[in-house]
């Protein structure tokens, strides 16, 4: 808590947050798979003026092995200034790191020393299970009234439904499941909201039983993965509408609602289409009170010789783009799209949300392309988690998706973090002077000092 004034990283609006100073540190979740070492959070120097720029300054290792760190987030953000539930003297201080396999939450204190951050509390799986009825913890969002966390599984051995629960702002106690009426929702993946409209949006991946031991292609062919969006009354915690994108659109993942709280549109990525292995981006929007979604970006699969493909892709003779993460700049202008399969990172101008315009593309790794970094380092894996600085000028991308799936698409994956510089009027390029080699550990989500483009919610336009 701050004693006198609000945390200086809180901004009333996204537009104003773009004036924030550049980040000096980044926190990167990393996995260790099969080597007996724990996962953790790496602190990376992002300050070009620093002597240790582009180096890992510290690794905060977890006390357990096999957690599967995935997404994580700050305890508090600009939503604390929301007038309906103002908590203006919260402090952006703790990183909450849910674990996807073991269902814990590590609470990491980044003060007083942001580099020597340390674990100060562990919320264990039993507390989450007994108070909220969930497991396989996934994403964190800082709300104005509580910390929201979602989970992909129930407490019934790898089945659903997945859902959302809340943590107390101050002591991180589990407050309970968020949903009062979940309607037909069963599968879970991501969640976020239109905070100015009291609307929650959730997406669908799979039950833990379907993903934990690796991707079973049969599940895609038989269209067993999630293919819908769910809209909820954020305030009354009730399901209001399902928008089905069609069963051929398998795995509906990252949700990026417009940062401007007056708007009612957003973007979601679909990993693959069962008819042609393409990926797609859909724009959701509200029309006369109804939520609708329209496919606005189509990214085709790239044909490839089966000899150059990993076993899982040999039957298809093609590399699917596998859009697994997208991110929207704070001015709601640029959407970045990670094609983890083909190894491409795309930038679209989405000023007109129903008519995105491709404004840039770079290649990094890829199943067959194997594009090297401009500094000459060969890359395997492909762009996956993507994060944008608040001013929209820098983009960071890592290459690990999920332990067992990494092994299927990129056997022997070696981790990296790459930085790209974006031009104000569109287009972007890989920064040749920045490269963090994670070796045989696998980096996933990046969180930037002071906030980034997928953390804060704003109640003012």
């Amino acid at each position, binding site marked *: 808590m701050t004693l006198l004034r609000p945390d200086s990283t809180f901004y*009333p609006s996204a537009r104003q947050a773009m004036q924030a100073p550049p980040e000096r540190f980044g926190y990167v979740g990393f996995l260790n798979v099969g080597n007996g070492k724990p996962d953790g959070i790496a602190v990376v120097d992002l300050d070009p003026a620093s002597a240790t720029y582009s180096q890992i300054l510290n690794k905060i290792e977890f006390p357990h092995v096999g957690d599967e760190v995935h997404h994580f987030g700050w305890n508090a953000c600009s939503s604390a200034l929301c007038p309906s539930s103002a908590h203006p003297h919260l402090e952006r201080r703790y990183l909450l790191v849910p674990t996807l396999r073991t269902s814990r939450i590590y609470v990491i204190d980044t003060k007083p020393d942001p580099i020597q951050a340390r674990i100060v509390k562990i919320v264990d799986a039993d507390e989450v299970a007994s108070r909220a009825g969930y497991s396989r913890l996934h994403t964190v969002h800082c709300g104005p009234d509580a910390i929201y966390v979602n989970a992909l599984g129930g407490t019934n051995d790898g089945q659903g439904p997945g859902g959302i629960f809340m943590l107390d702002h*101050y002591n991180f106690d589990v407050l309970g499941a968020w949903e009062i009426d979940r309607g037909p929702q069963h599968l879970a993946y991501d969640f976020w909201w239109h905070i100015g409209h009291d609307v929650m949006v959730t997406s669908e991946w799979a039950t833990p039983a379907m993903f934990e031991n690796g991707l079973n292609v049969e599940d895609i062919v038989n269209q067993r993965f999630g293919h819908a969006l769910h809209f909820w009354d954020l305030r009354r915690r009730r399901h209001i509408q399902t928008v089905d994108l069609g069963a051929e659109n398998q795995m509906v993942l990252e949700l990026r609602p417009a940062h401007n709280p007056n708007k009612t549109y957003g973007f979601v990525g679909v990993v693959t289409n069962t008819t042609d292995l393409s990926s797609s981006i859909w724009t959701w929007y509200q029309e006369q009170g109804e939520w609708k979604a329209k496919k606005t970006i189509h990214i085709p699969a790239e044909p490839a010789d089966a000899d150059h493909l990993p076993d899982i892709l040999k039957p298809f003779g093609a590399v699917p783009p596998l859009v697994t993460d997208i991110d929207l700049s704070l001015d709601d202008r640029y959407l970045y799209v990670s094609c983890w399969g083909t190894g491409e990172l795309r930038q679209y101008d989405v000023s007109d949300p129903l008519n995105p315009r491709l404004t840039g593309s770079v290649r990094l790794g890829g199943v067959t392309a194997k594009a090297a970094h401009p500094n000459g380092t060969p890359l395997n894996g492909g762009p996956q988690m993507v994060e944008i600085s608040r001013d929209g000028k820098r983009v960071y991308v890592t290459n690990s998706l999920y332990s067992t799936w990494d092994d299927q698409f990129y056997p022997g994956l070696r981790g990296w973090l790459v930085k790209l510089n974006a031009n104000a009027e569109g287009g972007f390029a890989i920064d040749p002077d920045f490269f963090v080699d994670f070796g045989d550990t696998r980096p996933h989500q990046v969180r930037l000092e002071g906030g980034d483009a997928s953390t804060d919610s704003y109640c003012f336009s």
Partner: protein
Amino acid sequence: MHPPTHTASPSELGLWLILAGFGVYHGLNPAMGWLFALARGLQQENPRAVWIALVPIAIGHAASIALAAMIVLALKEFIAMNTLQTATALMLIAFGVYKLMNWYRHPRWVGMRVSLPELAGWSFLMATAHGAGLMAAPALLGVMEMDGLGGMSHSAGANVWLAVSIHTLAMLLTMAIIAWVVYRRLGLMVLRTGWVNFDLIWSVALLFVGGIAFVTAI
């Protein structure tokens, strides 16, 4: 009981000013209403929405103060004034200590899309949970004891309702001025530096008022 007087003494005038002053103070706190009104104006892209929202916020706040007033008016029938004053002072001190320990906790009820009646309900909840009525109670007890403003003869009840009105008008006026200045002149970035910890100041104020009331009562 004091003998009836025909002109407001300085201390009596002081009581009315204190009630108006509490109104100004409650009006200043962004968490009490004006910021919500401002957000509605920005959301609806309509300055009128700001002013319209201030009315239910003031009504909700007035209802919370009026509730406190009704309670003290009712208790006055059964409890000796001095005992009531002492009890109010002790409650204020106890609540002040509680708020000092929990200043960062706030009610969680609404979202950003609320109807005007809900906005009044929210304002009532915020004022009540933060002890706005309790803070005004010693002054309300004070005005029961005296004649009306300007020497007019008033019953204790009429004085109390006048007090609630003065308090609310002061709050409404303050909210309107602040909202206007922030909306038209300063811009929302002022929140980053100007949103001082009203909650902590509030708890200290509760203790301060409780202390004064206690000393006055004994």
